[in-house]
């Protein structure tokens, strides 16, 4: 009797241990869902079509192949018939990634561009995969349904966030702290069991904790709320401290994301995130010091700085950051530039930034005289420095050497303005 009882206890203990080990490695039990929750699954599937209709799916084969290969390598077998793991890249420079309850995992180009190697990508995906494996979308949906108030809190999300249900909004914008912690914990174990370096996990948080712009996030996501990210970096660092270090996987990663990194820097310049653009472009130049294109990209980033001085976001309070965000919402880029140019500091920063840009473009031309893009950049710099003759000369060189450039109409219209100015000067 006693033996039988002991055996039973041992069996229960063994099965609990096996279960715990399975869960720790990212394998969870099946969770049956009701009709209402099936709607979430259907909605998750439909989102792919919506992103496609909005042309947001980034389909560069090399990048997709990389993300899918790493994702499928570390994912557990699906525990339920409604889970089908698939990995997508969204053309969006904001640093975010999210997983939907049906197993679809999305990673933004702005997130991928900041990662250094395949191990960091594996760490990020391991976290997202554990949201799916742990049925966090379903768990959160059940909790949310009990709290009507949540719909009022989350109802104000902008962008395409408005097209999805509350249950999915938490999947995109972040789960509860407990569920995020659970995904972090399990991600570390998944990495330990894989060929990837578990120490990449805290590095991902470190990368995302860098707030280059000193802006309070307009739509906070779990990847962009910095104090939390810093705390998570610390917690996960402690978690992986005793785990083995492994060789990092860079060889396949770097060529796959190279073009996308350059594109993301251009996105940041266009979207007026110049500090981020300069930081990323500098890291690219550091990695590819002899690549004229990267050096010219750094010129674009410096030009994008306008009259802004370098900032130290660590010195900014949340109130400062909110104020920065308010300024950004209230005033256009041109208005903010004009305001800065009214100050001594702004004028000095403007001159310095343009000088940095000019130096980068000149350096790129010295590296590869057949590369024409820097001429356009130089034209823009000289125009801003009110050097009409130099600007016109640079633009003429550009349009003559790149007669089929897509931006030819833009450059030609600038040349037309400069011609009028030069005529005025000569009269």
């Amino acid at each position, binding site marked *: 009797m006693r033996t039988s009882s002991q055996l039973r206890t041992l069996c229960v203990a063994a099965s609990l241990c096996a279960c715990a080990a399975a869960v720790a490695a990212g394998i969870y039990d099946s969770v049956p869902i009701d009709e209402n929750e099936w709607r979430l699954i259907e909605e998750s599937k439909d989102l792919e079509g919506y992103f496609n209709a909005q042309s947001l799916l980034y389909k560069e084969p090399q990048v997709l192949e990389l993300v899918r290969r790493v994702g499928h390598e570390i994912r557990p077998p699906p525990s339920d018939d409604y889970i089908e793991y698939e990995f997508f890249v969204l053309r969006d420079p904001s640093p975010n990634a999210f997983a939907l309850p049906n197993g679809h995992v999305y990673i933004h180009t702005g997130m991928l561009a900041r990662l250094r190697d395949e191990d960091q990508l594996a760490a990020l995906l391991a976290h997202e995969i554990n949201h799916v494996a742990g049925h966090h979308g379903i768990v959160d949906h059940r909790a949310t349904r009990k709290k009507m108030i949540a*719909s*009022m809190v989350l109802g104000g999300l902008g962008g395409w966030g*408005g097209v999805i249900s509350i249950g999915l909004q938490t999947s995109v914008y972040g789960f509860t702290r407990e569920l995020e912690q659970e995904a972090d914990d399990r991600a570390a174990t998944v990495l330990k069991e894989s060929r990837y370096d578990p120490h990449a996990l805290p590095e991902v948080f470190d990368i995302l904790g860098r707030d280059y712009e000193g802006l309070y996030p307009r739509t906070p996501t779990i990847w962009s709320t910095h104090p939390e990210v810093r705390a998570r970096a610390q917690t996960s660092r402690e978690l992986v401290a005793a785990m083995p270090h492994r060789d990092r996987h860079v060889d396949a990663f770097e060529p796959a994301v190279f073009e996308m990194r350059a594109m993301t820097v251009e996105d940041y310049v*266009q979207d*007026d995130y110049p500090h981020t653009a300069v930081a990323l472009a500098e890291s690219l130049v550091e990695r590819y010091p002899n690549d004229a294109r990267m050096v010219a990209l750094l010129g674009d980033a410096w030009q994008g700085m306008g009259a802004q001085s370098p900032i130290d976001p660590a010195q900014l309070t949340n109130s400062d950051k909110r104020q920065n965000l308010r300024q950004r919402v209230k005033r256009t880029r041109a208005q903010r530039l004009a305001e800065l140019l009214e100050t001594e500091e702004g004028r000095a920063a403007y001159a310095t930034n343009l000088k940095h840009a000019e130096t980068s473009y000149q350096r790129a031309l010295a590296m590869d005289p057949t590369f024409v893009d820097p001429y356009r950049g130089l034209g823009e710099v000289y125009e801003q420095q009110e050097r009409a003759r130099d600007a016109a000369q640079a633009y003429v060189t550009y349009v003559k050497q790149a007669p089929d450039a897509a931006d030819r109409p*833009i450059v*030609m219209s600038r040349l037309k303005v400069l011609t009028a100015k030069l005529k005025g000067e000569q009269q």
Partner: protein
Amino acid sequence: VIGIRTRVVVLCAMFACGGEALAARGFTAEFESGATRPKSIALLPVEASISRARVVETEGLIDESVAYGELFNVQVETLLSGKGYDVQVVDADRINSDRKLQEYVVDAKRAYDEMMVQYRPKRLAKRIYNGGDSMRLLAAHLGVDAVAFSKMNLTITAAGKAIVSALIGGTTSGAASQLALVDGDTGDLEVVQIGVAIVTPGEKTDQEMQGYVAKLAENNTKRLPGADPSERIEIAAGDEEVLDDVEALLEK
């Protein structure tokens, strides 16, 4: 005695009406005069969001958002063509099959969204809103004078939700849309038109939904003056002519 909640609602309604009155025209003086009025317009896919608000939660109708979004664009195309504009609908299939076009569209849409965050109806006339080079690249690629961006939101509420919302607040049924035109030569925002439609509580048939979409499209275009190609000021000049001119000046 009027409660605080009622007063807030009345004040908000007054501000909304005031804003509507100020933005009644919703286009710049140059657009009105014809100087920046386009001959050709490219209609990008509408960013549509259709949802069903229930008592406890809101359900996103994603497939319907895509389908009725396409219908909205068809309606807008018909209405603008009727006003004499040369309209091309740039659908998702076309965008997704042309890598360069996809890049231009996504960049231009982000620039547009950023512009609309800063947009205030009263300031449109000051011509301070500009989408930058991404707009000009897109327009040049498509060979059009202007690019149209649109958004459409439609919320259906179950009858029970409508009662709850009336009592304690929350999502109510309704439809709103926005159509904006950005000049392809300059990147300037020229037109922002707002459309609204009253949606009664309860489930809707496909025919009713089509009716709301048609109403929104009509409200977005009815104030726009017709095309007047003779008035548009052409910015583009012959490339060779400009190059000859500037090179002669540089030689001096």
